[in-house]
């Protein structure tokens, strides 16, 4: 819940509500981008960004290097798979 997991913004699905599809280790799900959007970085500009995702919200833009580091750390801590499984969208 607290560590978050890195993912990459694939496309914007709802610009008004700042929602986008984020790919986390091959699992794609809709993520809220409100906290990584500001006057200098529009919703549209988020496509391709690596972001740190906490409980369905992108909380920080990170570089690819940091994203890989964090993923490896989560794998070693045994936390990555549980987080990815939990991300499956509700039906």
């Amino acid at each position, binding site marked *: *819940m*607290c*560590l*978050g997991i890195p993912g990459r913004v694939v496309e914007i699905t709802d610009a008004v*509500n700042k929602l986008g599809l984020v790919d986390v280790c091959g699992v794609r799900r*809709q993520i*809220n981008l*409100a*906290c*990584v*959007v*500001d006057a200098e970085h529009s919703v549209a500009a988020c496509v391709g960004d690596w972001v*740190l995702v*906490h*409980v*369905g*919200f992108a*909380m*920080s833009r*990170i*570089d690819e*290097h*940091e994203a*890989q*580091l*964090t993923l*490896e*750390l989560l794998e*070693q*801590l*045994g*936390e990555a798979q549980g987080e990815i499984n*939990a*991300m*499956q*969208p*509700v039906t």
Partner: protein
Amino acid sequence: MRYADEFRDPDKARTLVAEIVRLAAPLAADRGRPLQIMEVCGGHTHTIFRYGLKAMLPQELIEFVHGPGCPVCVLPMGRVDNCVALARNPNVIFTTFGDAMRVPGSHGSLLQAKADGADVRMVYSPLDALQIARKNPGREVIFFALGFETTMPSTALTVLQARREGIGNFSLFCNHITIPATMKALLDSPDLMLDGFLGPGHVSMVIGNRPYDFIARVYHRPLVVSGFEPLDLLQSLWMVIKQIAEGRCEIENQYTRIVPEEGNAQALAAVGEVFELRDFFEWRGLGSIEHSGVKMRADFARFDAERKFSMPHLTVADPKACQCGDVLKGLIKPHQCRVFGTACTPETPLGALMVSSEGACAAYHQYGRLTRTAQPAAAASA
């Protein structure tokens, strides 16, 4: 080369450890005890154990005190009982993060309530709970909002979304808590002898570094906001010890690649719009702490489960055998608790610190046996 190599480089680790030992030795000798450094965040506790950082540092010089930084672990039983009562209402769909399912209340956990037929659903995100509300307009959907400042923006933004859409059957049972107020309570505790702090990384990503200023200014303790890599933690520890050795106490940031000085403006704006400080919030093991929790502002009353449903204020004493409070304050180590590993195990937790993988007791249970075998004196000293 694997990306992470630079953060797990054994040579860099050895250099840092040597520097820490050199600086800490005279300080520990002066005090006649090891330097006590609290890592506030449960994620840090996890890294310290997973990578054996504790064993790399001489125990007569450095002692890690595991902080209260696992929001699942500090939930008082009364609040869990409230959850179970809400979930038993046949018109309610009670949604929660998976971590909270097994936290014991005085009448069982949410998992047990679910087994008894209550409609309790695990969700990954508060947005999933909102989606369940959209799909079940005839039922009341309650989301169990918990966590420190890291998860607060996500529930605030979800409520703002619910208000925009005019969704009337969605509410939060708000149990969010704040890190700085909790650290103040720990510092006010007379039996605590902390020399410095490793500050939480992801909480600070949201709130920035300034909310910790009082720790240096009023309490004269150094704090270094730290990343989660093993070398992040060693470097942060070195920065704390260096401050002590040089007679400084400042708030420093080792995790600049994630934590901006001022935090995340958008997240803070959403939190400020939806939540306000409570006068007091009850913590498992620590009792009532001033301004340590938030509640929903009156403007959001129709999204506030505490206003929508009758909810008694339950103060339920922690189980007598449990010593979670002493562990949280760093007075005893997890394995020194009288029920550790016997009545209280990760499979059947009695205290909340055993429930989540980020809880200090669960970490000791998972990794600690090896450490204790290697350092039999540890149990006797602390």
